[in-house]
């Protein structure tokens, strides 16, 4: 079923022909689960397509309804009501800031300290033989500016051409981490840290952060404890381990 999933969109776009189409239809007939998936795919597509197309045409209607809403529901006062107390608000704001300050600087657990220890590295790709040199700098700029979603797209495009390049894989893993795909990042960093590239220690270090974000503190301790003395992160790891 895994192989056929790739063709669902082509099937509904009418871009599946010949043997592939025949095999696809056969799979639908034979596999109820797959048939349901194909139908769900179409439902989602059609519903959202209708939504998106219609949304563009509904601007005038929305304006009419907003006007009538004001007349018949009188919603949302924009000014603060009579009960708004500026003094209480300021006191509350000061207390909030004070608590935030104390939590940030005095919190004793290793976990928050751990979050602060990890800065993202500066991306500097040294890829050779890339067809589009602009992609390198585009990936670097996006990553270094914190646009991790964009960086991820460009790095994945670079990966098509350089599937084994450690730099691409490393920064892709970090971009995955920063865009919330933590398990993917863990898998990629684990694989890199087990390899022989010049980034294996970096990968091992950021694997600690990935495990932490996954909530697997046992793996955090284990990974910190396995950082070898010749790693540039050894001392940092020792300090973190002492505090945990």
């Amino acid at each position, binding site marked *: 079923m895994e192989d056929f999933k790739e063709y669902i969109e082509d099937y509904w776009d009418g871009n599946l022909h010949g043997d592939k189409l025949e095999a696809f239809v056969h799979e639908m007939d034979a596999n109820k689960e797959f048939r349901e998936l194909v139908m769900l795919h179409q439902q989602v597509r059609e519903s*959202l397509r209708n939504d998106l197309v219609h949304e563009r045409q509904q601007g005038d209607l929305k304006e009419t309804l907003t006007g009538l809403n004001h007349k*018949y529901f009188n919603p949302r006062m924009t000014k603060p009501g009579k009960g708004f107390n500026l003094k209480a608000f300021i006191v509350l704001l000061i207390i909030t800031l004070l608590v935030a300050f104390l939590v940030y600087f005095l919190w004793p657990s290793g976990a928050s300290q751990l979050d602060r220890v990890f800065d993202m590295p500066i991306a500097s790709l040294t890829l050779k033989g890339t067809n589009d040199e602009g992609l390198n700098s585009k990936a670097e700029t996006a990553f270094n500016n914190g646009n991790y*979603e964009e960086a991820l797209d460009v790095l994945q495009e670079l990966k098509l051409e350089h599937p084994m390049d450690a730099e691409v894989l490393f920064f892709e893993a970090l971009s995955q981490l920063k865009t919330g795909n933590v398990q993917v990042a863990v898998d990629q960093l684990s694989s890199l840290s087990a390899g022989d590239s010049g980034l294996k220690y970096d990968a091992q270090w950021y694997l600690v952060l990935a495990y932490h974000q996954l909530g697997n503190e046992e793996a955090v301790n284990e990974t910190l404890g396995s950082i070898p003395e010749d790693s540039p992160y050894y001392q940092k790891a020792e300090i973190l381990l002492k505090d945990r």
Partner: protein
Amino acid sequence: MEKEAKKPHQDHQYILALLENNSSQIEEIYKAHADKVKNFILKNSGTTDDAADVFQDALMTISRQFSLPGKVLTCPFGAYLMMVVRSLWMNELSRRKQKRVTISDLKGYTNKQDQYDFPFSEDDILKEELFKECFLKLGEKCKSILEGAWTGIPLMELAENLDMSYAFLRKKKSECISKLIKSVQESPMFKIIKS
């Protein structure tokens, strides 16, 4: 599920009013139903602002549903409007309370689903809402790709607009759809609707 089109109810005029943005007839809808919707929302943990939002969303939903070719209203407009309002509000309450709210949890509503032939069911509406929510959770890039592809922009042109190669756009589009479908399938609401 969608039902076959039958003879239109006389209230189909309100559907046409929405589709044609006829403000005087739309105002008649407000005059006839706004208070009823407000009372229903206020009785069920909502505010006047919520009532206004739900009323507007319900009319937008109805307008979108009937923009599909061949769709006609075969029941009183008010009964259908209240069914849509109830579905949207149940969905919103479920989201706020992080647990499924059902019709039996609601006050001040008489279920007329068996009495009338509604053109779209509550499940249809909940599914549409779920698909929209899952779509909005996608990353900006995915949203741009799918929106472009689904609103008829040729993929070559879309690839150029988004500054990516055609091959990569196709790959990314497929990934984005998989992500969207997975998010729908994993949603607790989907499991409830399915069951």
